[in-house]
């Protein structure tokens, strides 16, 4: 089974589809609320981009945490399915960016969400492992949003731009990008490495609905 077909199988699972449907509905809602009815400044992107980034971070972290105990192949498939969320929401981002004409260059909101989403997925997995070690698995559903809120609060308090997904798309922030790349690379290694040890369970994990 190729990686793509594994992703396709994971993407058709109800949990992923429901999350995607909610995610796209949220973006549609932002478009409906913020798109200007007549003339004047189009500020849609400034609402849509943070919403998209925050939701992607939440979804990625949630799936990462939920799949922490799953076999590596399934985790990889889920990570791929979460990246489909990023691709599927690109037209919303591009259209609103085009109409709003923000000063931030287009490559930034185009590239960053892929890295950011994968990084948050890995962060979610790490969070679940940490919660398991601390025997706090029962609170994982709360820990995911709380971690995001805490990261955002910490960024705002310290005046940094490291973890906050709400502001990450608004301007080119290299510290944030570097941290996300570091998290994504570490996560990728983590996802790939145990895969060899648990190769025997791959088929089982990937075929799960």
């Amino acid at each position, binding site marked *: 089974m*190729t990686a*793509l*077909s594994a*992703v*396709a*199988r994971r*993407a*058709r699972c109800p949990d*992923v*589809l429901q999350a*995607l*449907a909610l995610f*796209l*509905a949220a*973006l*549609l809602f932002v*478009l*409906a609320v913020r*798109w*200007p*009815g*007549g*003339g*004047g*400044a*189009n*500020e849609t992107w400034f609402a849509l981009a943070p919403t998209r980034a925050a939701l992607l971070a939440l979804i990625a972290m949630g799936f990462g945490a939920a799949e922490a105990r799953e076999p590596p192949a399934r985790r990889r498939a889920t990570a791929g399915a979460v990246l*489909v969320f990023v*691709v*599927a929401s*690109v*037209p*919303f981002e*591009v*259209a*609103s960016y*085009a*109409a709003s*004409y*923000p*000063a931030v260059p287009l490559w930034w909101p185009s590239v960053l969400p892929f890295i950011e989403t994968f990084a948050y997925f890995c962060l979610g997995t790490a969070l679940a492992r940490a919660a398991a070690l601390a025997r706090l698995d029962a609170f994982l559903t709360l820990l995911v949003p709380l971690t995001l809120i805490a990261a955002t609060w910490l960024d705002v308090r310290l005046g940094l731009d490291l973890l906050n997904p709400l502001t990450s798309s608004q301007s080119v922030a290299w510290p944030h990008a570097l941290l996300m790349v570091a998290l994504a690379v570490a996560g990728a290694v983590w996802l790939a490495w145990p895969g060899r040890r648990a190769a025997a369970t791959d088929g089982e994990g990937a075929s799960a609905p």
Partner: protein
Amino acid sequence: MLLLWARRRAGGARRRPHRPALAWLVLVAVAVAGSARGQGADGARVILGLGGKLVAGAWNPLEVTVRDAAATTLEVRIDEGDLVTGPRIVRYRASLPGGSGVSVFDDDLYVPAFQTLSWRLVSAGRVLASGSLGAREADGRPLQVVVSADPGAWRAAYPSDARVVDVAAPELPARAAAYDGVASLLIDGTAASPRTASVAAAAAGGAEVLLAGALPASQAGLARLAGSGVSRLGAGEVRRVPASVGAASRALADWHEQDRGALLAALAATPLVRSPRSAPQPLVLSLAAAYALLALLSLRFGGTPGVLATVALALVLSVAGWRLMRPPAAVISAGRTLMVGGGELALGLSVAERLTLPAGEVSVAGAARPLTPEPYLTDAGGTHVQLPRWHGVTLALRPSLGQAALRYQGGRLRNAGTTALRDVYVVGMGAQGDLAAGASRAVAPGEEGAASPMMARLGALLPRGTALAEGPQRLWVALPPTITDGGTPP
């Protein structure tokens, strides 16, 4: 400062017998601070305003002289803010090439009504000269310039509150913008002769030039500017008057200068650029909803091809969305020029409008000033204004001179340009139709009402008999001729 010194002197004169020398120093310091002139220790000199007298709310000539200096930079910083808005900084920066000998740099600088104005001349990290002016020096009254060996003799020709300034003939610049703050220029022929180009620039720039009495033969060129007695030249006129205070006073009282500020305001009254309209919301929402549904269905039922189809659809829609939604340019520009002509010369009053969609800097080439209160910078690259997103600014460009295409000649309206002028309209006479290049026409009563609201606005500000016409990218104005100008006013 002077008062403080006087109080101290009353109690300490015995102890400090050398105080009178100090008093003179203080007097000189006060006198220097009161004018926009400054001289540094290295022979560097900056003069702002004609004869060192600047006019707030007008373009002022600027002259910088440096001697044996490396490349030098002049920085002027003007705070035009107020108590309500706080500081609002206008900056001007000019680079002067270095070299041996004396280097002179001339330019025109718009000086708004200011709280403080400071300048400094920097060369190789060293300040050659600097100075500052306070709000009290921001005098908006126009200058009445006298070029005479005995300027005091003409003082009575002006109202008591007029700003009469005597200027040496060589100090008169030959740039129309330099006379923006000048109401009149009186030359009586007793001093050295000014250059004809300077006098023509003063008249074309909108000043009333009075040639008082019989000018010496060496100034015959000036006399020719006045024609047989009075002649329109650009936005102003040149008039010969008898060498008497009364005659000069009457001529000055009769002169009605065009309100160039009002003309600029009329020119910029309607927006030149409009912010782009976004695609209709229902269309955007319908397309987005259809796409979302299609993506979900592809993923649910398409398997691997469904994922690929979703990716392809996202890419195609992104490209289509970009092409449909993206406004054509980040900065939308437009401009309009009004050429106010009298005789062969015309004063160009231009406005440029810039609308930026992303937050950033907008620029126009050359010196300009925003018509709305905005901080800005003028340097060799032009005039730059920082704007927030989806904001526009209208800038008035420095006035310039050009050849008048529309003019009165022999009592007839003539198109001296190379392209046809459309919708000729004469204030008080009505529409005159189009005027082909090189053609002329007698003014006759025509259909009432100007061809466009813009013309109507401008016509309301101009004297009866003024002709207006639309040319390519320009609006032409021909001020009515005077009786002795070779024709009768219509």
